[in-house]
């Protein structure tokens, strides 16, 4: 069968916040841009984000600025963050949010008509621009409508709306194509009819989101099969920080079929509290040393903070997510959980019913419709859920370029920005800041390119054979392999990890890799989910192997990586980044250590010595002292 071919300057894989922002930038810089996505345009995972986008605009508290945001981000990530990314993010997020407003977004307002900002875990000041609890929807719709606006412009100018930017929806990319070392395009299939398609393009931006579908209990959708992570690995790029997975502390726990669905952190930001079966606000018992002076030690102080933030410290329910998730886990293990295996999250006794419905409309709706719980009357039951991967493609902070020429990555699929733990609200802003940078990076790369690369026919034929394989054999049901992988990762490489269990998981993954080679898809090529899943398995398995291997190596606990057998945080390990690549024979993953470059002088001096001392080595501290003396 003839393969459909399209020639573009830039192909963006993914139509979430990062992908759309990248595509808009590349088109605004005059590049012919394709947006390829697995689901319908406007349905990407970003649509689910609830709480908001963090940007130090200072609309609610004028003391806020990029330096405070930078410090919060580094603290949240336990100083493992790529500091250059954290810096760019903190500096540029306000402009990216304001730009959305100029494209038609309607954020909630302050009294003086500016964009309102809300409190969130780990952020010192109210910082999240939001629209009720459906901020992701506003973000994606605004970007989607911006793409349409650009198409309308092109229609007027060139008589063809799709001349410079076109969306290929329900089209899944299964391989990146290369010419020598450099990227030359991508290979994929149309979900609708199963036909194959090749994109010829010198620059590819990965914006495929996360990996949560390797876990049973997750807030993520079917799309999160780690495709971009795997595509990058297979194309020779490196993944960093893959051991760091954020388990969001508050997912629904009941009924079983909705287990894992997110309960937004805004519930706590707006006054909701966590209690165990004894009615105790247990978070006061879990404030770690590094945060001791920043959080309230009594309920009274915590409660006063909601109305007077200048004179009180915030309640510990608003600690970074990793702390809260571990605390809930520990309470449940100690037998102080709720009947359905979580803990209680209560706003009903904290805010008037009308206020709850106004501030948290989707949560009210979600619990009512899915669990028969009226959150204005009774507490919710919640527990940790696999939510976000901090790890991803190693990229240059300024341009989003990976080590493979022509390959760029932005958003959840990229790594570094969030260190070992992401603060709530920092993802939506990350998508905008680094989506734009990757789009600009791709455009600049093209400008410096002497000639267009070409994909070899052999590579296309190999990609085609790989994609057809599951249809050609009568093998095991792909759903059973998937379910087993999910159980393995959930139980053995979950929120609390041990060397023995991770090793067991790695053995299981090896076996599953073999079984995945033998899965068969019944039915034809038209919209066949069994076939699609068979192809996704390769990606989920590769990514799971990265997660497990890196988790086994990192012998400390930090952020989204907790080792029962190494409970402490180690200053030595902070200087080390684990970097995954495809093994020489392409059969698996190898992990190597890489040194974390020291923070730039003007950035490290934004911190107090006392705070740094909790994270960095004696040697680094001596350098810091010398620096401050100068």
């Amino acid at each position, binding site marked *: 069968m003839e393969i459909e071919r399209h020639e573009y300057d830039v192909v963006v894989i993914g139509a979430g916040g990062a992908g759309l922002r990248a595509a808009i930038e590349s088109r605004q810089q005059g590049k012919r841009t394709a947006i390829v996505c697995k689901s*319908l345009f406007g349905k990407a995972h970003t649509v689910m984000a609830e709480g908001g986008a963090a940007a130090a605009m200072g609309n609610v508290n004028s003391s806020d600025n990029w330096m405070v945001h930078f410090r919060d981000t580094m603290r949240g990530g336990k100083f493992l963050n790529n500091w250059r990314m954290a810096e760019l993010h903190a500096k540029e997020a306000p402009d990216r949010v304001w730009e959305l407003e100029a494209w038609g977004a309607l954020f909630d307002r302050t009294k003086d008509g500016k964009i309102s900002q809300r409190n969130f875990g780990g952020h010192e000041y109210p910082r999240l621009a939001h629209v009720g609890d459906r901020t992701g929807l506003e973000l994606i719709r605004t970007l989607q409508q911006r793409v349409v606006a650009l198409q309308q412009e092109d229609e007027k100018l060139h008589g063809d709306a799709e001349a410079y930017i076109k969306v290929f929806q329900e089209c899944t990319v299964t391989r990146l194509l290369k010419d020598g070392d450099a990227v030359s395009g991508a290979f994929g299939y149309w979900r609708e009819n199963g036909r194959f398609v090749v994109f010829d393009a010198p620059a590819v931006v990965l914006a495929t989101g996360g990996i949560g579908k390797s876990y049973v209990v997750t807030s993520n959708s079917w799309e999160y099969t780690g495709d971009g992570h795997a595509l990058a690995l297979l194309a020779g790029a490196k993944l960093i920080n893959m051991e760091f997975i954020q388990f969001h502390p508050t997912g629904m726990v009941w009924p079983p079929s909705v287990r894992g669905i997110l309960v937004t952190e805004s519930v706590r930001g707006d006054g909701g509290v966590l209690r165990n079966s004894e009615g105790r606000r247990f978070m006061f018992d879990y404030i770690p040393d590094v945060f001791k002076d920043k959080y309230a030690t009594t309920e009274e102080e915590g409660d006063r903070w909601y109305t007077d933030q200048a004179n009180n410290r915030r309640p510990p329910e608003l600690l970074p997510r990793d702390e809260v998730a571990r605390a809930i886990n520990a309470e449940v293990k100690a037998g102080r959980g709720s009947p359905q295996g979580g803990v209680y999250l209560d706003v009903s006794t904290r805010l008037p019913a009308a206020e709850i419905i106004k501030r948290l409309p989707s949560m009210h709706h979600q619990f009512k419709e899915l669990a028969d719980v009226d959150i204005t009357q009774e507490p919710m039951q919640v527990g940790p859920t696999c939510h976000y991967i901090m790890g991803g493609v190693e990229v240059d902070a300024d341009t989003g370029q990976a080590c493979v020429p022509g390959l760029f990555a932005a958003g959840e699929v990229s790594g570094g920005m969030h260190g070992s733990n992401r603060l709530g609200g920092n993802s939506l802003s990350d998508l905008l800041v680094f989506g734009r940078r990757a789009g600009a990076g791709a455009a600049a790369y093209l400008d410096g390119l002497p000639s267009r690369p070409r994909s070899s026919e052999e590579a296309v034929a190999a990609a085609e054979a790989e994609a057809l394989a599951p249809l050609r054999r009568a093998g095991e049901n792909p759903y059973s392999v998937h379910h087993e992988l999910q159980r393995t990762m959930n139980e053995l490489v979950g929120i609390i990890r041990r060397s023995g269990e991770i090793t067991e998981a790695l053995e299981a993954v090896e076996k599953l890799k073999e079984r995945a080679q033998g899965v068969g898809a019944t039915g034809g090529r038209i919209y*066949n989910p069994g076939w699609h899943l068979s192809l996704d398995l390769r990606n989920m398995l590769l990514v799971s192997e990265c997660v497990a291997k890196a988790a086994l190596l990192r012998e400390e606990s930090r952020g989204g990586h907790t080792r029962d057998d190494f409970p402490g945080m180690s200053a030595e390990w902070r200087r080390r980044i684990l970097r995954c690549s495809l093994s020489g024979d392409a059969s698996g993953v190898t992990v190597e250590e890489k040194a974390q470059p020291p923070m730039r002088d003007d950035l490290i001096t934004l911190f107090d010595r006392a705070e740094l001392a909790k994270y960095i080595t004696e040697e680094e501290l001596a350098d810091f002292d010398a620096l401050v003396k100068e």
Partner: protein
Amino acid sequence: MSYKAKFRVWRGEGGEGRLEDFTVEVNEGEVVLDIIHRLQATQAPDLAVRWNCKAGKCGSCSMEINGRPRLGCMTRMSTFTEDETITVTPMRTFPVIKDLVTDVSFNYEKARQIPSFTPPAGVNPGEYRMEQIDVERSQEFRKCIECFMCNNVCHVIRDHEENKPGFAGPRFLMRIAELDMHPYDVADRKDAAQDEHGLGYCNITKCCTEVCPEHIKITDNALIPMKERVVDRRYDPLVWLGNKIFKRSTAKS
């Protein structure tokens, strides 16, 4: 707590198809989409269905359940009796691709026909000032998750292919209203709403409002006010001009 339910699911592709009977396990708390997934995992691996969020946020899983347009992920099995046969079919107004998946490109074409947000010249990003009360009207419409069930149910196009070219459907007529009510939008949208996007076809039956999973009052808050604006405009251009100037001056203050 679990029981066996009887399901009839529409299966087929390329314009041909039939209802297929299944008996399938149902557990406590499950929704229709869970059952469709169980069918995929156990009996019909190639059964096609769209879904993403499974939390009523993305608008992918629109289908007709016992003839009513619903989100599969928000329709709890407990709303049916255990001996009831549950019939699941694709949205009727759009061509079927396969099983429960329809070709919704009509909606994307209509979206592109509506002129985009048009802010006044000279307002830079960061300078926008709007009162909460002024953004709330349009915010209601921006809750739309584009499930397209309102367009699916509207009788103007439900069984009238011939009306499709001239009618944007409630979803996109509401989009026009949303922009018209946006404090900073300066485009004139009234004539086009009537003449190009078919606002006049709507005879305010409110079927769209009834099926909207976001409970947006499409007819009362978007379509009827938009009709009134069109009428005002047509009979009294001065009123329109006054409104527009007023809108701009409050936006800037």
